[in-house]
């Protein structure tokens, strides 16, 4: 299922919580070094999908690989090859910046000769040099986000998963954060990022729109817009594009529901 050019492959991935279908048989591929945007409103199934790919949630059905490793059987190996940044800030607030970095260096076993360089890199990248000994809880949102990213990629994983990394962060910090993502992608790192900011979709190489657990559109942002342009003959904004895609999906889905009644 995996070729050397793909970082993530998913076929019919499904997650049910009781009767509720959170992710309904989604399939997609992410190429190595690509910035892949996973878009959708809250509750669409973005986090659920990302958690299944990171090996911290067991899929109900389907198959897939991450970094060439099966997501059903080799979850622990996947964990050594990915970086994951969850939606909620999840570093230790009572530890200092340095202690958090040291902790994750220890967990990922960064070799002693590289440790200092990686720490410097994170501090530089996050702009936290002067705050080395500050408690993490006292940092502002943008700093926390960049420190989280830094701790998640200390071990230089080939694939990183970012779950709404920029939510609740000011526009300048968001911009800085995306500069970092570009920098990483430039080095060949595959970036899988979820967001509900439509402007951020433009920054991605390819995007997938997930709505009510289903994948309703996928492609490069420009291609999706061109398709839309053919129908309406007005150049759409990203936001218009998504609203119309979602409405079209609802129109298609509703008649069926009525028939079923």
């Amino acid at each position, binding site marked *: 299922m995996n070729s050397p050019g793909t970082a993530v492959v998913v076929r019919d991935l499904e997650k049910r919580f009781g009767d509720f279908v959170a992710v309904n048989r989604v399939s997609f591929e992410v190429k190595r070094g690509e910035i892949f945007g996973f878009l959708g409103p809250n509750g669409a199934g973005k986090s659920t999908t990302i958690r299944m790919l990171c090996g911290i949630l067991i899929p109900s059905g389907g198959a897939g690989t991450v970094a060439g490793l099966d997501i059903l059987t080799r979850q622990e190996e996947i964990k050594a090859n990915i970086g994951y940044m*969850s939606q909620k800030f999840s570093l230790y607030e009572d530890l200092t910046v340095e202690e958090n970095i040291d902790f994750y260096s220890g967990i990922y076993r960064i070799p002693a000769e590289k440790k200092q360089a990686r720490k410097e890199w994170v501090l530089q990248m996050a702009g936290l040099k002067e705050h080395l000994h500050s408690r993490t809880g006292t940092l502002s949102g943008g700093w926390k986000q960049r420190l989280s990213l830094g701790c998640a990629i200390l071990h230089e994983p080939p694939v990183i998963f970012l779950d709404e990394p920029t939510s609740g962060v000011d526009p300048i910090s968001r911009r800085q954060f995306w500069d970092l993502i570009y920098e990483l992608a430039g080095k060949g790192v595959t970036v899988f990022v979820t967001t509900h900011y439509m402007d951020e979709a433009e920054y991605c190489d390819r995007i997938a729109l997930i709505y009510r657990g289903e994948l309703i559109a996928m492609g490069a942002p420009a291609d999706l817009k061109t398709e839309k342009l053919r129908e309406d003959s007005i150049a759409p904004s990203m936001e218009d594009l998504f609203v119309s895609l979602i409405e079209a999906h609802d129109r298609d889905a509703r008649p069926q529901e009525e028939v079923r009644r």
Partner: protein
Amino acid sequence: MKLFRVRAIARKEFIHIVRDPRSLGMAIAVPMLLLSLFGFALTMDVDKVPLAVWDQSGTPDSRELIAQFSGSRYFNIRVQARNYREVVRAIDSREALAALIVPADFADRMGAGQVVPVQAIVDGSDANTATIAMGYARVVTFAYSQQLALREVQRVGGAAINLPVEVRPRVWYNGDMESKNYIIPGLIAVIMMVIAALLTSLTVAREWERGTMEQLISTPVRGPELILGKLLPYFAIGMLDVLLAVLMGEFFFDVPLRGNVGLLFAVSAIFLSGALTLGMLISIVTKSQLLASQLAMVLTFLPAFLLSGFMYDIGNMPKFIQGITYLIPARYFVALLKGIYLKGIGLEILGMEALLLVVFGALVMVVANLKYRKKVTV
């Protein structure tokens, strides 16, 4: 299991503890406080029973009897009553726990060689003390009667005689029969059980509640590494608590420590590992700090207090309850501590208890590892 990850976790956990001085203070002060409180309050000794006396006779004979009471170390005459109402008041107000009433014809009847009944009233609302006080009263009067009888025999027969049989009681291990000597060692066991489980009951649940667990489970860290790493700093605190408790027993309560001190700390270490892991298991299963701490309290305190043989002798319990006590790890630790402290015995006699503590520790360790999942549920 990789030791470098255990070390990383242990170091991080240690920083958490140091950064939270209130919890650290609690972890060290609470055992000391409990030990002092229970150590002083939980005395089973009945000493110097406050006594009310109503001497209706008022003769040298009656005063001699009363002197037997006031002269013994068991009674302390607090009230000299002049009528029955004053006796009742003294007992109702707990000014006296017992009363001695000498009848008006005491001297006359004694002079006539009759048996003279003397009334002893005991406050039964405290049954344990009442029983002991009654026993003391019997012993004091019996000794006095015996003395009188011998004097009479000697007067009539003209020669001193001796009683043919005499018991010479000798109490081993706790010569003065001081209750603190057996309460303190047991108390150390009970307190350590509760504190150890409480200490670790928050650690895993806290990470789930704060969301830090989600980050942690996305890394290659393994369950046993996490559990062991989290245990280590708390183990250090637990051993410090044991050390402080032993020092308090030695210098504060003067409890004799006759056995091997090394063995004492070795079995404490085994017990602590099990009790700390039990707290961790509760934390793993509940994923909620509030629930975990409450559960840890209930699951450890009551069984350790009531069913460990710390205060209530297991041999006196109904057979069914006796069976349950085998499931209480504190039971073995209490037996070990009492044995080491008072009898100075070692593994040659307490080997089975020590082995069962190891089994308990290994069992909770295995269950905790089985129950810990590196997965989110929602």
